């Protein structure tokens, strides 16, 4: 009995905050999405699934959803692969690897809202850095952020740049704890580097990959700072992401009920991923 009490007492402060700012809001989101938005002089009324119906008929919502999935698909595998490559490079005997490690990690330290302005310059048509480079090759000028086909791709590029270095650190730590004897044994047996990587290193890194994957997924739905500066969701919602749309609806249009419905979609996606990860991937991971 005493241990029960102590256990709960220890847990209490954290539990209190978690319930107040995670579980309660999550339930609150569901609750408020079933009512209308209160306005001055008009309290909220029960509308059932009306907000969801409006959402299903809202082309901007579908565009944001599609964009977010494309965004996730574009950033997650690439940043993880790049992080792994960086870790492998920096872990080996490379000239100047301390400096390289620093340069790969620097993007993580800079606030996204600041570097987005710098990337705005890179993508500026005419005299932006990218344009200056493509100009050298005689390629025509292109409006990178102002074209529907390339706006999202530009945001993906910026996100990969920001994330890869952060994931690299986790891979680096994991790599440095793989016993050297494995590498020695493999080279004694004449195993090629790629073979060694595929059969030994990568499976041993599975826990890290899983951890990094979780982070990458969360970030692909969480990171909208660059949109604020670079495209504001344009052109014509080509770079609109779900969380940014929620911010627009909730804090610019002040339509809190609709914002709640949109947030529910986001929560369901994240929850589905969490479930999928625990059920499917946990089995294939080699733990030591």
């Amino acid at each position, binding site marked *: 009995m005493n241990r029960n009490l102590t256990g709960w007492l220890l847990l209490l402060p954290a539990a209190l905050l978690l319930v107040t700012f995670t579980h309660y809001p999550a339930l609150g989101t569901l609750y408020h999405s079933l009512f209308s938005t209160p*306005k*001055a*002089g008009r309290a909220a009324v029960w509308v059932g699934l009306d907000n969801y119906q409006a959402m299903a008929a809202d082309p*901007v919502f579908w565009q944001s959803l599609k964009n977010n999935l494309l965004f996730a698909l574009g950033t997650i595998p690439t940043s993880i692969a790049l992080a792994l490559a960086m870790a492998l490079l920096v872990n080996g005997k490379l000239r100047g690897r301390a400096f390289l490690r620093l340069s790969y990690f620097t993007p993580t330290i800079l606030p996204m809202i600041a570097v987005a302005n710098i990337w*705005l310059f890179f993508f*500026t*048509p*005419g*005299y932006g850095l990218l344009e200056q480079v493509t100009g050298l090759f*005689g390629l*025509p*000028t292109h*409006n990178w*952020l*102002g*074209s*529907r086909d390339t706006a999202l791709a530009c945001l993906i590029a910026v996100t990969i740049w920001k994330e890869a270095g952060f994931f690299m650190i986790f891979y680096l730590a994991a790599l440095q704890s793989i016993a050297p004897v494995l590498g020695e044994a493999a080279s004694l047996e004449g195993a090629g580097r790629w073979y060694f990587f595929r059969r030994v290193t990568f499976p041993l890194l599975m826990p890290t990959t899983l951890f990094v994957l979780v982070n990458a997924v969360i970030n692909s739905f969480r990171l909208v700072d660059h949109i604020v500066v670079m*495209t*504001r969701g*344009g*052109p*014509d*919602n*080509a770079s609109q992401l779900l969380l940014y749309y929620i911010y*627009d609806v909730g*804090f*610019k*249009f*002040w*339509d809190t009920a609709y914002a709640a419905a949109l947030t529910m979609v986001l929560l369901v996606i994240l929850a589905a991923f969490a479930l999928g990860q625990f059920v499917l991937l946990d089995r294939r991971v080699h733990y030591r």
Partner: protein
Amino acid sequence: MTFARAAATTLALGLALLAGIALAQPTTEITFYYPIAVGGPITRIVDGYAEQFSKEHPSIRVKPVYTGTYQESIVKALTAYRSGEPPTTAILLSTDMFTLIDEDAIVPWDELAKAADEAAWMKAFFPAFMKNSQTGGKTWGIPFQRSTIVLYWNKEIFKEAGLDPNKPPATWAEQVELAKKLTKRDASGNVTRWGVQVPSSGFPYWLFQGFTTQNDVLLMNEAGTQTHFDDPKVIEALQYWVDLSARHKVMAPGVIEWGTTPKDFFEKKTAMMWTTTGNLTNVRNNARFEFGVAMLPAGRHRGSPTGGGNFYVFKKAPAAQQQAAVKFAKWMTSPERAAQWGIDTGYVAVRPDAWQTAAMKKYVADFPAAAVARDQLQYAVAELSTHENQRVTKALNDGLQAALTGAKSPAQAMKDAQAEAERILRPYRR
């Protein structure tokens, strides 16, 4: 008690009494939210104004709070209002008027400014600026930092292209014709310099209003309950804009970034640009070539929307603070202050008598470009403003960007935008 002691005690008590009276002077403190939309040491200028006002009115203390861009400021003001502690007064977009009224957040100035001189003050502004400040017979906003769109042109490039550097295009046709001559291509046919640049990121509806006003059509009614996006003249205006890049190839394709347009102009990537008169000081300081400023070219006639921010006073603030806010707004928009503000920032001084002050007259004599925006006021119309303004303008913005990127035809884009606006505004027409 000795005489000395008695004297000392009396003196001490007397001083205490005086101090008490002094401390008991009620100082009304008002909070004042303001955005910054142009470059320069605006925070210092505004803080300076607040200090000077407090010096001249010792019983009022103004606390200026810088709240970011116009977008952020309205969010800040409304979040502060909803959490029960609104600012006493704020400078917000003139187009936010209906949103603020719907939120029941603001008080009309006529209810507060009842004294004779205050009533006269409210009539002293340019009528063009009052169009977004009044509805239902009441005045909800007092103009402070207002602007119009103007055309900037690079005189050097004009000369280089064999054109008269002092003759900017005066009509739509001339705009295309001159732009064609000004667009420069390199050996492989890639454009190295565009003829004209009209930005379309963020809030393309504002620049679009230039085209529609010039084409003699209004985008909404005065009550803010009806839009006319699918009017044939509106579609015509959009077609002209789209054709600049699609057909005549004198403007860059796709959505053009507002924030980098002045820089594009400085870097000579475009010979002409449409942007706010608020950029005047910026262009003057950074253009390394002779440039001119002109009214926008005429379609069926000249035209431009107005833009910028008004003073609003909030409801939940106590009466004493609201009265103090009236005094503050009146002081900030006095002819001398309005003139000085215009000179320091490039905004259009909001009242005709400000242009008659000595300082302003000298400034205009020195720099005639400063008067262009004022002269254009006679052709100016209200900026797009309706109920649920943010939502309706987003519908229009999306449609404009769709047309400019070629995803939809102008007619289709405007039809869709109108349908969406209808859906949003229908409940407000009951």
